[in-house]
Every structure is written in C-alpha cells, then in structure tokens.
C-alpha cells in the first residue's frame, strides 16, 4: 500500500499508509487523518481518495491551495514520488517497492477516456462538504418540488401528482376523474420529466386547455398555469 511521508524542512515528521477504499483527510483540525498544525493550513485543507486502482488528491478549496510538484491543483491523480505541498509542509506520496501502481498512461488522467465510478461514500462526503445531501429515496426527487393540482372549479382542495404518469379523464381508473360531455376517458396525462412537468392531450373531442389554449400534443407546465378539462378548472402549483 502506498504511503504518505509528512516532511517539514527536510525532517520527516509523520508517516501515513493509504489503503484501497479509504479516504485520508488533511488539515489543521484534529478531526483530520493527517493533522498539520500550521496557520497556513486550512481546517479541512485537502483529501486523498482511493478511486479505482488509483489515488486522487482533491483540494478542499483551501485558503492557500494545494500544490503537486510546485503546480497548484484542484484535483490530481497521484503518481509515485509526487510531492504535495500544503502550507510549508510536504507530503510525499510513494508506492511500496514492487507494488503494483497504475501506469501513468493508463491512469485515468483526463477522465474522459475512462468510465469510472466514484465510490458512493466519497461522493457523499464531497456533497456533504458543501452542506447538501444527495437524495436517498428510489424514485424521488427528495428536495425537488412536487407538482400539485389545486381545484379552482369543479372540485375542492388539491391533488398531489404522485405518479410519474398521472391520468386525468372520465375513466374510473383515472388518477383524477373529471366530467364533461366531450371529455375523453383519459383526456390528459401529466408526466414528471427530468426538466419538469408536462401535460399531454390523449383522447376525446374536447381537448384540455392550459391558460386558455387547447393542447394538441404536449406542453411544459409552469407554476400557476391554469388547466381546463371539461368542467374542471385546476391550477398547477409546486410544493416542496
């Protein structure tokens, strides 16, 4: 397993071992794996993650930056004998003798050439770093607003669009049942797409209307749009 040797003015002041699947944090605060007590070092300064068969150094937007072999870096795939400068301290990254290491050519530098998966644990940490949590539930869009249909006429209260494909029509199997002579069994559907909600006309002589204009195929819904289907009048609202 590769090691990190912490040096200050040519004196070795610490040695750390990196392991596949483990992350190492570097900073001034005690909670870090590698603690460097120096005011030039940020509380959480940088970290090293094991990604695939390589090791990735990421500067955690530290005040004074991280440098590898004198170049400032945001992130950098570590190679044998790389010198990481943090404040006035140097960390030397080195593989053990005879240890298998990713060849520089095959290292995923450039990223584009290699399809790789970021370890979920690392990703979560990265996201937590900026104070937000990635959504957890399977289908859903935790954190994302949910569409709600609020009755303006022909009913009372509101209905949450709780289906990916929400059906509105005369049919008893509709998610929202509406009446009206020329309204279709399924008059319209509302689908949740990656870029928002859309309403589509499905069948029936009377087409659904959004803000007064008949929908022939599909329209994206904006908040507060007014939808008319038969004798029912609805307003589309987003709720978090």
């Amino acid at each position, binding site marked *: 397993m590769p090691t990190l040797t912490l040096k200050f003015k040519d004196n070795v002041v610490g040695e750390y071992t990196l392991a596949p699947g483990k992350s190492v944090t570097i900073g001034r605060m005690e909670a870090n794996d590698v603690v460097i007590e120096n005011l030039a070092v940020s509380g959480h300064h940088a970290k090293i993650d094991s990604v695939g068969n390589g090791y990735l150094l990421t500067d955690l937007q530290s005040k004074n930056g991280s440098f590898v072999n004198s170049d400032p870096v945001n992130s950098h795939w570590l190679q044998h004998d790389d010198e990481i400068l943090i404040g006035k301290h140097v960390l030397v990254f080195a593989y053990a003798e005879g240890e298998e290491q990713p060849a520089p050519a095959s290292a995923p530098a450039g990223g584009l050439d290699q399809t790789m998966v970021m370890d979920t644990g690392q990703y979560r940490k990265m996201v937590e770093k900026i104070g*937000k949590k990635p959504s957890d539930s399977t289908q859903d869009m935790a954190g994302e607003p949910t569409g709600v249909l609020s009755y303006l006429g022909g009913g009372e209260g509101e209905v949450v669009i709780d*289906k990916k494909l929400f059906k509105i029509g005369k049919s008893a199997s509709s998610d929202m049942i509406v009446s009206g002579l020329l309204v279709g069994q399924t008059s319209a559907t509302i689908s949740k797409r990656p870029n928002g909600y859309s309403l589509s006309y*499905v069948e029936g002589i009377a087409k659904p209307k959004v803000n007064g204009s008949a929908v022939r195929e*599909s329209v994206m819904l904006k908040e507060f749009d007014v939808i008319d289907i038969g004798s029912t009048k609805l307003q589309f609202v987003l709720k978090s």
Partner: protein
Amino acid sequence: MIVVESAGITDVGRKRKSNEDSLFVDDDLGLYMVADGMGGHRAGEVASELVVETIQAYITQIHRNSSRAESETADSALSKEANHLLASIHLANKGVHQIAQSNDAYRGMGSTVSAAYLTDQTVIAANVGDSPIYLIHDSTIELLSVTHNVVTEQAAIDPDAADKLGEDVKFLLTRAMGVEESVRPDICEVPIFRDDVLVISSDGLSDLASPEEILDVVEEQSSATACQKLIEMANGRGGHDNVTVVVLRIKDTKKRGGITKLRTRVARRIIHFLEKYI
C-alpha cells in the same frame, strides 16, 4: 400498436482496442437499450452484455406471460410497465454485482444502462449512468435520462461548486450497474406522438456531439442513416471511446382520437338500443 422504424449501431471508435458497449433493439418487445461497460480485460464487455441480456430476458418473460402477478416491491408511482422495466434493471444489477464479487477477473466491473420501453401511448425511459436518452418532438430535443456523473449532480445542487471541480473528477459516474448490491435508476414515462424520435447513445457520442447536432442529423434521415452519420460524426472528431447509437422513429401510434372513437361508441349504443327494443 405503435409502428416504429428503428436502427442501432455500435462501433469500437478510433482509440480503443475493444468495444465494451452493448445494444439491444427489438420492435416486437418495444424495447431499446444501450449499455456502456467498464472494467479491464474484457470485463466491461461482459458487464454491458449481461445487463442488456438480463433486461431483455425479463421483459420477454413478461410479454409471454402477461398475467404475471404484480411484484410486491412495485412502486405505486409508476405504471405496470414501468415497474416491469425497473424490476428488470434491479435484476440485472444484482447479476453483474454477484459475478463481479465472485470472480477475480471481473472484480470492479460495471456498466451504464439506458433503456426505452414503449407502451401503447407512452415511452418509459430508465437509466443508470451517463448514457443519454433523447426525445425529439416537434423539432426540439429533450433529455429524458438523468446524467449520473459528478459534474451534473453537483451542478443541480450548487453550480458554483460544480465549476470548481477538476476535469478528472467531473465525469466520474455517481451510479452504475453492478457496483453495489442495489441500484437507483431514474425513470420517467411520457406520451409519444407520431414522428417523435428517440435517440439512445453511449457517451462516446454525447461527449463529441451536442444535442442540437444530434437533432439536425436525426431529423433529416431514416433511422439507419442517422445512426451511421452519428457514428461517423463521433469518429471524425477523434472517436476517443466506443460509440453506440440507437435511433427509433414513431411512424404511427394506436391512438384513436375523438371522432372515430365517438362514432364507434354511438354505433355501439344504437346497436344496444336496437337489440333491446326490437
């Protein structure tokens, strides 16, 4: 029945020695897929192929045995067909994961998957990873898949932080098939109309061609020619990765709108009336 004109091509590209992409096109099932495998020593090929075959086998089974009971894990927010597709993806994930765990040669392998599954009036688009599924409707192109890589997910939370990411981290996948025991696909179901076109590709194309360029090529050509042109476009720009493209054009939908339907209903009522009183 939806009438579809479909085509799919996969190409090794200009830089790689092997092709780790897999594709599947079947108008009878109404199922179309692209999977982009990863992992050295042919493991990527194994992963993407296994994903595509498992999903295909599961959906075929459903079609043969349509009375199949609903799975207990069915998600009530999704239609029956969407639940089937989701179940097939979960099954494929487990398969790849198990083989990756139990065989040293395949350790760490994985794959993306992007699938489009047609029902009578809708398309269900589900994906894991960064292979895009585009829907072209009325000369506009829209991404139906959700890109599971670091830069896209970060941009959704905090665009400033996404800008600061290093080039080498941006394109790491945040989800993939076979990497963990369970997986979280993104899925959506949208109505489709006559002349709509769906394009599913691997990032070998989407890294090198913008959605607008894809729209231009697809609008002018038959599905087969469009596939060919898009592959040529990616290879002409370096072809740094395997390139796979599936194009399907909706030629007709079953939708019987307004008048015809009303007419049949009126006719049925008249017959009913006649039978009853005469």
